[in-house]
């Protein structure tokens, strides 16, 4: 797997995902989006299922995003 290509793919897919997030809510909330070539492949109930589908591309170049617009909250550790 080309790590540089994967990193670029993750960045491009994230931009696409963020721009379309509102279209996915609330129906797909809590599911996992599989993305490739800056487009949506589909939604899955688990990250494992999304990965299994992603591996079928054969080159490992895809990304997975949880459909949840809220940022991670680290509680007390948010302050450092």
């Amino acid at each position, binding site marked *: *797997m080309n*790590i540089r290509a*994967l*990193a670029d793919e*993750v*960045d491009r*897919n*994230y931009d696409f995902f963020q721009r379309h997030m509102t279209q996915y809510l609330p129906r797909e909330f809590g599911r*996992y989006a599989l993305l490739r070539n800056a487009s949506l492949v589909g939604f899955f109930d*688990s*990250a*494992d299922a999304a*990965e*299994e589908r992603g*591996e079928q591309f054969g080159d490992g170049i895809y*990304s*997975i*995003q*949880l459909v949840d617009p*809220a*940022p*991670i*909250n*680290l*509680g*007390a*550790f*948010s*302050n*450092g």
Partner: protein
Amino acid sequence: MGEIVWRHSGQRLRLPVAVLPSAAAQNSLAIEVIDALVDTGATGTGLRPDVAKALDVPGRGKRRVMTANGDILVPEYRIRLGFFCGEFQNDPEPHGSPYVLDFGLLVHALRENFSYQMLIGMDVLSRCDLILLKDRTATIRLP
């Protein structure tokens, strides 16, 4: 079902855990045993980047994380998580083979100098029974 019972410090819940790449990874049998903090105040589980690097786990997504200075965007990694089950008089020890959860996780990157190698948040804890008694006995029943 796995279970961990131990007497905690009264200040923090620390556990040794095994981190493995996702089942689809070419090096899926690689393993790192690290120190994790159980934190019911964290909504998600985080992994320090040095551990991901040691396991050769690449970023598979991105996620925003709240900090005191505003949200930051960090990588997310695909991993599996294992626990060392048993009853311990004090802090648990990483003896024997880990009980690896049968579901993989998408975890966010902690900052490089984070005090713990992993922060186990509510995405994992909400799938477990977590029991804390006033005599400092802690129990985690794993799914």
